[in-house]
């Protein structure tokens, strides 16, 4: 029982990362109809912005400044979000009227370029992020297990971000305009709303979410050029299971699948890496729109 609760907590730890990343993917897909394969690279980039800000600013750019963990939580999403906006404006926009597959191929290419770029300068097997704040470096005694404070912080912080995003999109004026833009871009534009601007900002926001997840992941996992590539396939499976374009679906599925993975580690460890894909196949066969998606 102790092992089950402990693995459940670790599963939740993984689940919040799934949730944050699949949330970004779902928002981008919902509004732009783009399957953003570069999402994993944005996550990786977020972690690298934190690492570079902490350790390499002086060495590389001659700026005697160190951006700590808290600073990175703001900096990295801004930098990554800006890059997202540039990518959307200069490249993805031109593919807006083409089939999904073109956007997927383009973003896949961007992923490979970013990974190659970072692999050239950094250890492929990962560089530890040294900037974990002192306040979060302790250990919590939860009774059934000891749990590092930082991991608990990551869980709580990610949950807050996920549900805040959901609230903004589903329950505010801004959100309702966004949803209107998704439902019928022409009509929304006719009402005087600037749909292309909304699209660009949404892409930037989705990318920023991935960057933020990257910063949160940096102290737990080593920062590596391939960290996003390892995760993105699973995250796509999460989005497929949850239903493309469903915000709450992406969050809940991300969390649930983290838990499922954790539980599999208790009962049959060798299947832990494949259980999500097994579920994905089942969902595709019996409910192709996903658990939370609307059948068309």
């Amino acid at each position, binding site marked *: 029982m*102790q*092992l089950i609760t*402990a*693995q459940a907590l*670790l599963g939740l*730890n993984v689940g919040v990362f799934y949730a944050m990343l699949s949330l970004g993917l779902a928002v981008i897909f919902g509004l732009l109809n783009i399957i953003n394969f570069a999402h994993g690279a944005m996550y990786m980039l977020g972690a690298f912005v934190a690492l570079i800000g902490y350790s390499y600013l002086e060495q590389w750019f001659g700026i005697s400044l160190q951006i700590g963990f808290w600073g990175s939580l703001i900096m990295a999403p801004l930098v990554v979000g800006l890059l997202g906006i540039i990518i959307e404006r200069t490249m993805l926009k031109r593919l807006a009227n083409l089939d999904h597959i073109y956007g997927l191929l383009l973003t896949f290419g961007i992923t490979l370029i970013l990974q190659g770029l970072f*692999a*050239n300068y950094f*250890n*492929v*097997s*990962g560089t530890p992020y040294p900037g974990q704040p002192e306040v979060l470096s302790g*250990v919590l005694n939860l009774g059934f*297990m*000891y*749990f*590092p404070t930082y991991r608990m912080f990551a869980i709580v912080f990610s949950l807050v971000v996920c549900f805040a995003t959901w609230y903004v999109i589903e329950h505010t004026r801004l959100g309702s305009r966004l949803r209107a833009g998704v439902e019928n871009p022409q009509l929304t534009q006719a009402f005087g709303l600037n749909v292309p601007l909304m699209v660009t900002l949404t892409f930037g926001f989705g990318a920023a979410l991935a960057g933020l997840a990257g910063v949160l992941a940096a102290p*737990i*996992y*080593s920062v*590596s050029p391939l960290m996003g590539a390892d995760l993105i396939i699973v995250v796509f499976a999460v989005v497929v299971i949850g239903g493309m374009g469903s915000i709450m679906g992406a969050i809940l599925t991300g969390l649930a699948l983290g838990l499922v993975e*954790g539980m599999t*580690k*208790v009962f049959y*460890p060798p299947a*832990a890496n494949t259980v999500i894909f097994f579920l994905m196949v089942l969902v595709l066969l019996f409910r192709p729109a996903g658990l939370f998606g609307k059948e068309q």
Partner: protein
Amino acid sequence: MFSNWKTGIATVAAATAVSLPMAANAELSDGVLKIGVLSDMSGVYKTLEGPGAVTAAEMAVEDFGGSIMGTPIEIVSADHQNKADIAASTAREWIDDDEVDMLTALDNSSVALAVQGLAAERKVITMNTGAGTTALTEEQCTPYGIHYVYDTHALPVGTATAMVKNGGEKWFFLTADYAFGHSLRDNTGAVVEELGGEVVGSIQHPLSTNDFSSYLLQAQASGADVIGLANAGQDTVNAIKQANQFQIVQSGQKLAGMLVFITDVHSMGLDIAQGLQFTTAFVWNQDEEALEWSNRFNERHGAMPTMVQAGVYSAVSNYLKAVEAVGTDDSDAVRAQLGEMELNDFFVDGGKIAPNGSMLHDMFLVEVKSPDESESEWDLLNVVSRIPADQAYISMEETKCDLVNK
């Protein structure tokens, strides 16, 4: 990651260009004696072997005088990226096109097995300092393959014996999922069971795992006394650090690092690593001679040598001595000479290279000092006991190598 590899090839190319105009020496085949250092220059094993191994090989050549019988000696190096196919194609190019005479380092057992086999087909000596698997001198032994520093038989003899005798009878393994990890787990398990202990479970993790938390919790739940880490390098460091985060040791289980390098202890820090026992072939301050060499190495490399880096120096210098003694770089003659020699330097004391390629030498069981005991940055280890070569290594009566006449 590719830049190192390319630099290596560029070095080789440049070296070939330079060597062409020189008059070929009557004895040494192509006018230059080339030693190839093939190591992990960018991944998990970079710190323990990698660029430091190149430095050690260069020091060996310089100390030898830079040339042998009037022929220049040259070091070439490349990154194998822990991929057997990349290692094999680099080795093939080195041997076939660049006439490299001896290959060393070869950390990572998958790489080691691939390169040793390929080199033997081309009659080239490999002096492996970095890989652990006993297959190099057992099932897959070759007439030209030498295993120089340690193997997965020598490691558990000291560590597992000490732990079982101190009451650590039930073992659970975290195993790196490739040739080396499996070999280390099986050999350690055998030692544990021979002493009356029990292996209660094992879980495989991929090479270079960042998050050991769920593996560690399973190990904790298994009820084992000892969690054996059948992995190496950054993996061992991550596992020990995270065991500390999840308070595994504080909750009563012991960790046994089956392959730990001094650089790992240095990167973990004494607070986390203190009390950890492991087996090593070399401690930089074990005696005056070792201390003197290690200080020179530290000045050039910026860190004290690991056992495999010190081993590269010893392997290269003994290879050069053997070439000089027989007056040719013909692999059969040099290998025969190496088998005859008794190896004595700061690294090895009375070592012998057995017919199966295993370099038989004493090992040490060491314990990590507490922060109070340590007097300097690298003063990290106490020698607990010396493990005689005949206990540490598989004997010629027991070996499965078919080169040995029993």
